[in-house]
C-alpha cells in the first residue's frame, strides 16, 4: 500500500515558483533519499508534505486518505480534525533539532504521547526509555538539550519523533547542522531504522550514505524531479548534470 502519495504538487512564494510539479509515492518500508542543489525545492517539498507549508496546487494523501486536493483549480485542505488524524501518520526530524529547551530529554520524548495521544505516563516513559536505549542515550534522560552535543540532540529528536509511532518519518538534512565527527552517530541510527524497515524520506547531502541505504534516490533541480531510480542507476546516470552533482559531494 502507498503510505504517501503526492500528485502534481505546486508551491510558490510571492509569485516565485519553487515546486513546479512534483509527483511521488512511497510504499511501506521504502527508504527514499532526495538530493539536489540548494534552492532545488527539496526542503519545500518536505515542508509541504508535512503540512508546515500549504501547497498551492496538487494532491496529498497519506494511507489513501486525502489531506489536500484540488477543487476548481484551488488547493483545498481537509478539515482540522481529519488533518490532526493524518498528522499522526508521519514524523519529522528537523535540521536544527528543535528540541524543547525547557524539557529534559525524557520529557521531550514523552510529552507529546502523553498530552496529545493521551498515552498513560508510565507507558510513554517505558516506550521512551526503550528508544533511548536503542539510540544510546539512556544516561541522558534527565539532561536538558543544551547539555547535549549536536549529535545527541539530533538522536533525542529522532526518539521524540519515533515515540509517536509514525508510519513514515521525514528527515530534513538531519546531519547538516552537525560537525563531521558527529554525523556518524546520527547516520548509524538512521541506518538501523532502515534495517527495521521504517519508511523514511530523507533530504540529505550525504551521497555515500544515501547510496548505501536508499531503495530509491530522487534528484531534484529547479522545482522538478530531474531524475530518480535505484542508487546504482542514479550514480551511473546517463544524465551528466546528475553525475556532476554527485561527483562534487563524493569528492
Amino acid at each position: 500500500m502507498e503510505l504517501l502519495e503526492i500528485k502534481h504538487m505546486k508551491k510558490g512564494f510571492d509569485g516565485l515558483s519553487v515546486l513546479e510539479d512534483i509527483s511521488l509515492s512511497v510504499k511501506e518500508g521504502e527508504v527514499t533519499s532526495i538530493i539536489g542543489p540548494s534552492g532545488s525545492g527539496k526542503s519545500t517539498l518536505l515542508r509541504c508534505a508535512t503540512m508546515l507549508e500549504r501547497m498551492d496546487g496538487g494532491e496529498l494523501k497519506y494511507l489513501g486518505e486525502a489531506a489536500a486536493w484540488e477543487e476548481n483549480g484551488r488547493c483545498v485542505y481537509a478539515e482540522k480534525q481529519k488533518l490532526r488524524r493524518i498528522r499522526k501518520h508521519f514524523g519529522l526530524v528537523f535540521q536544527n533539532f528543535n528540541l524543547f529547551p525547557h524539557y529534559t530529554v525524557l520529557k521531550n520524548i514523552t510529552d507529546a504521547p502523553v498530552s496529545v495521544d493521551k498515552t498513560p505516563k508510565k507507558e510513554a516513559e517505558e516506550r521512551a526509555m526503550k528508544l533511548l536505549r536503542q539510540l544510546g542515550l539512556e544516561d541522558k534522560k534527565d539532561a536538558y538539550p543544551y547539555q547535549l552535543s549536536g549529535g545527541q540532540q539530533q538522536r533525542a529528536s529522532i526518539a521524540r519523533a519515533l515515540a509517536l509511532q509514525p508510519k513514515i518519518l521525514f528527515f530534513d538534512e538531519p546531519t547538516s547542522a552537525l560537525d563531521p565527527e558527529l554525523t556518524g552517530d546520527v547516520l548509524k541510527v538512521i541506518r538501523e531504522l532502515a534495517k527495521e524497515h521504517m519508511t523514511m524520506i530523507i533530504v540529505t547531502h550525504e551521497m555515500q550514505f544515501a547510496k548505501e541505504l536508499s531503495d530509491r534516490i530522487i534528484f531534484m533541480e529547479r522545482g522538478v524531479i530531474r531524475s530518480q531510480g535505484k542508487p546504482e542507476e542514479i550514480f551511473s546516470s546517463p544524465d551528466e548534470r546528475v553525475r556532476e552533482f554527485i561527483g562534487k559531494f563524493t569528492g
Partner: protein
Amino acid sequence: MTKWQRPLQRKDSGLVLSMGTFWGNGRKGMGTAMKMETIFFQLLKGMGATVEIFFLTLLFSLPLGLALAFCRMSRRKWLQGISKLYISVMRGTPLMLQLIVVYFSPYYIFGVKISAGYRFGAVILAFALNYAAYFAEIYRAGIASIPVGQYEAAKVLGYSRGQTFFKIILPQVVKRILPPVTNETITLVKDTSLAFVLAQAEMFTIAKQIAAKETSVTPLMAAGVFYYIFNLAVAGGMECLEKRLDYYR
C-alpha cells in the same frame, strides 16, 4: 499658618529646619516635632496600601498585558490597530492624568455619582490599564523572540495551538522577559506614590501629610528608605525567580 510654619515652600529656612529634624537635633527643629517612631509607624500603615496597590496591579495587569499582546499580534488588522492605539496612548500620557481620568470619568461621561469606595478601585483600575500596556510590549517582544522551529516542532508532534502556546512557548517567554519585567515592576513600586492625586492614603500621601504638618522633610526621606527596601525585596525576589529558571538555556 504663618510663613515660618511653611518652610517647605521657602528653601532657605525650610531646609535648615527640616535637616535639623532629620538629624534628630531637637533644638533647631520644631518644639512639637513628631518622634521618629511615630513617623515610622504612620508610614508603615501607609505601606499596607502601597503593597496592596502593587500586588493588585500586578495581578490584573500581567494577564491583561498578555491578552493585549495577543490583540497586538493578531492577524485581524482592526484589532491590531485598536491595541496599537491603546498602547500608544497609555504609554504616551502621564499616569497621573490617567488616574484622574479613570476616577472622574464615571461622573463626567456617565453622570454616575462617584462613591467614596470607588477611590481605591479607580487607583487599581488606572494602574492595571497603564501597566498592561507596558507588559503587552514586553510579552510581544518575548513571544517574537522564540524561534519558529519551536512552533513547527509542536505542530508536527500534534500539539494543539493552545497546548503549543502554554506548554512550549510561554515558559520560554517567561524566562526571556524576566529582566524587563523586573524593571517595570520596580518602576511600579515607585509609581504607586502617584495614587496621592486621588488622595488615596498610601505611604507617600501620608509622608507628604506629615511633612506638611511637621514642616520637615524627614517623613519624605523615610518614605524614600521604605521604597528602597521594598524594591530591594522585589529585585531579590525576581533574581530568585531568574535563578530558578536557570536550569535550561
